[in-house]
């Protein structure tokens, strides 16, 4: 068996939630002390939002203030997940937040550089480096008896359609399930990776293919979710016995959260106090909501989850280590969005591996 590197103490399956506060953009330097800010970081896991009349205090697994470095974010968020991945767990890291809150900076690094040696590089490139570092170390230890195969795919979900970022010519792709392999994107290009440098290349190429559009807030932002997946397969030969292990690492950059009707809030099944939907063709959503409160009775709901939740079903209350990085902008103008991001993150903590086992002992206790 693989050694547990940093033996994660027995922790629940609850999703871990990290909040990162970005510094305000340059040029809007604050001259009047704290007045321009809508929040303050109280400790490494609490944050205070200056709401009126009463300030609100939120507690998370980790709160990173404006000074927190990329390296430190990686260590506290992703390191553990990459290690679990080597131990055969699936892992997923999400970045969530409004446009301009620093999702891409956190996950990728500065947008103008596709040079991942940059000291400001983000979680994704650092995860590559660490993963391949661990693989090399394993190989050295185990000698020729052990080999690794890493493959990656990079897809984008836009408007409930799936596109392959590694093959810009491809048309819409479909999700399928395999009894051994789980959920996968049928026909997505899988590229074999042998080093972190190769992984950077694939990432850079795919990133350029993303559908980027301007939102009504008039900033450059993506309305699509991007999912970078690495499959790590290890093969160990012990005499005649071959032991194969495989796990997935999903790195997800979600679309900006400022538009509530975008799918992720809905997609994670965390309902917002909804507004009236005007289109009669959405009647089904209303009815589905009525059935949702059904009291444990057998029922079937005809409307499938969103593509994103289906693809990451395992990560959201499944058999995986998952964490969400909620990015917030501290400016007082962002108060509304920041509050909604923190509320979302608060609820995300409640998502757990729900193993409902059909149990019917009627008549058996006697």
């Amino acid at each position, binding site marked *: 068996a693989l050694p547990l590197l940093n033996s994660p103490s027995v922790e629940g399956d609850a999703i871990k939630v990290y909040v990162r506060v970005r510094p305000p953009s340059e040029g809007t330097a604050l001259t009047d002390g704290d007045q321009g800010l809508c929040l303050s970081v109280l400790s490494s896991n609490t944050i205070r939002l200056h709401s009126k009349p009463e300030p609100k205090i939120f507690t998370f697994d980790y709160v990173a203030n404006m000074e927190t470095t990329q390296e430190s974010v990686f260590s506290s968020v992703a390191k553990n997940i990459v290690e679990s991945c080597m131990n055969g*767990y*699936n892992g997923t890291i999400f970045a969530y937040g409004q446009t301009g809150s620093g999702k891409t900076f956190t996950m990728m690094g500065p947008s103008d550089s596709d040079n991942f040696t940059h000291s400001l590089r983000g979680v994704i490139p650092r995860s590559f480096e660490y993963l391949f570092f661990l693989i090399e170390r394993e190989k050295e230890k185990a000698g020729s008896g052990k080999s690794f195969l890493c493959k990656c795919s990079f897809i984008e979900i836009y408007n409930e359609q799936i596109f392959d970022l590694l093959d810009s010519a491809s048309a819409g792709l479909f999700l399928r399930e395999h*009894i051994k392999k789980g959920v996968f994107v049928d026909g997505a290009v899988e590229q074999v990776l042998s080093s972190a440098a190769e992984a950077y290349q694939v990432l850079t190429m795919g990133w350029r293919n993303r559908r980027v559009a301007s939102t009504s807030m008039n900033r450059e932002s993506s309305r699509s979710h991007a999912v970078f997946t690495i499959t790590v397969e290890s093969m160990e030969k012990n005499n005649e016995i071959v032991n194969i292990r495989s796990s997935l690492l999903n790195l997800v950059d979600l679309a900006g959260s400022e538009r509530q009707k975008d799918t992720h809030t809905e997609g994670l099944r965390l309902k917002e106090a909804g507004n*009236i939907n005007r289109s009669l063709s959405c009647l089904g959503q209303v009815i589905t909501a009525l059935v949702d409160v059904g009291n444990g*009775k057998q029922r079937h709901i*005809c409307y499938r989850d969103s593509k994103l939740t289906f693809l990451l079903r*395992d990560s959201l209350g499944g058999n995986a280590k998952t964490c969400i990085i909620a990015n917030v902008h501290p400016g007082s103008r962002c108060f509304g969005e920041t509050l909604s991001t923190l509320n979302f993150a608060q609820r995300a903590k409640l998502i757990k591996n729900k193993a409902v086992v059909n*149990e019917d002992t009627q008549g*058996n206790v006697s």
Partner: protein
Amino acid sequence: AAGGWAAVCEKFRTARTLSTVESRKDPETEPYRSKYSARALLQEVKQLLSAAEEGGEARLLAVRRAVLEYELGVNHTDTEELSAGEEHLQRCTQLLEPHRLSPDCVSLYIQAQNNLGILWSLRDEIKTAQTYLESAEALYNQYMKEDGNPPLDPSEHFMAEEEKITDQERSKRFEKAYTHTLYYLAQVYQHLEMIEKAAQYCHTTLKRQLEYCGYNPVEWALNAATLSQYYLSKQCFMEARHCLAASSVIFSQAGQVPSAEDNETEQDQQDLRQRKAEIARCWIKYCLNLLQSARKLLEDNIGELDPDRQLELKAQRKKEEDEKEKGRKKAVLFGTSDICDSVLAMEEKVSSVYPLDFQEAREIFLVGQNYVLEAKEFFQVDGYVTDHIEIVQDHSALFKVLAFFEEDYERRCKMHKRRLDMLESIYVDLNPQYYLLISRQLQFELADTYYEMMDLKIAIGNRLEELDSHTIKKINSLAQLAIKYYELFLDSLRNPDRVFPEQLEEDVLRPAMVAKFHIARLYGKLITSDSKKQLENMQTSLEYYTFLVDYCEKYPDAVRAVETELELSREMVGLLPTRMERLRAKLCPFI
């Protein structure tokens, strides 16, 4: 002046086109471009109207101004300027207030109220939205009662006489506006957690879509099938069946649209097949719930069919059901004449009253089983693992509940065998890394089924003079298999170092405890003539019972989840050591 009026109408028409058609093509960088142009045009029209005010008839002008205020109100709401929108809409309703029951105003008034409802819901003030929408509903009812003639469509106020629309079209648009009122109310009630009322309004919305032909058959069928699942959760089988029958009937129209045939892509066909399978799955749940509810009514305290209760219910059924259902039926009936006939014919294929004996249960079972086959045709394991397994689980559940109605134990065993075959063949291939939850469900269900079969075999054996070696072997092997699957389930709770959790997560607490308890009982049931072996089994049994007792002592919160099991375990922990002592004494009588 006539030319002037024509120009005004033209401007108005252009504004409407910009707002409803052009705006959909606006680039993302300027999402409201067409709406803003439409707004400018509407303002111009408003200016022109004011200029004409001198000579015009006061009422006519007021109504025309109300139309403009309405359009401006909607325009501002659409462009996220709620306060301005509210002002315009309020002005519209004020202008119309005295005339709101007259045929040229009622439709506009209702639509203004609808939009005020939307506006307040955008402000998260659902209660206020509710008052506007309910008043729109009341106005519709009052108008239909007092007048009922097809009222003027709001757009007609800016049309030349010869362009005006037919009564039929007027009525259609008016009814559509009211359908929207009901649909918005359904949402408002849902947000206010008035679930029953929300469901009723969804039902009415569906009903009206059918009556006024404003529906897409596939969408409608899926909505009706989904609604049936709401009724199932409320145990309203008659309503659930009606929704499902209507769903199937309307869905069959979807394939019959001739124009779609040629340019239908592979993907569309695929989608259609999937929808059909989804509706089949709703039917499966219907059959399953009906059978399971009937079982609940009929079973005695050890889960067997209670013959007294059966007779009682049979007598009661004749008296009550007919009367009660007739009244309810009128309220929910979908469709007009021919659709209605097809729906009723569809309904006749399966009962909506509780089955009270094996024959009745079997008929429902067979319908359910047919839908299982239909659903599996699309949801094949290759490509749809989760869905496929869920359907197989339903199939197994159908057999399980049918077995309850079966009196013959041998035949009952065969039904459980069928369940084992279907579940085991899936279980062997399933990768628990990706399907942990399903995998656990299957382990538990397989264990329970073996357990149940063992109990049946013991019951069969008890009728014999003496247990023959074949039966003993069978009982032991069923017990071993049950133990195997319970252990697999318990193993799935271990961490990567294979350590069993110190404290169980809340969601697996009960199943894990039940698994331990059942294993304890199973070791107690194993039959052996070897006393030493018997002693060993008793020892193992005792260990498992002790686990329950110790765990609950350490974590008193767990007691709630396993009260009965705990009580019995305590009893056994008390009894077993004495029995084991006696057995030991028998083994070595001289010590």
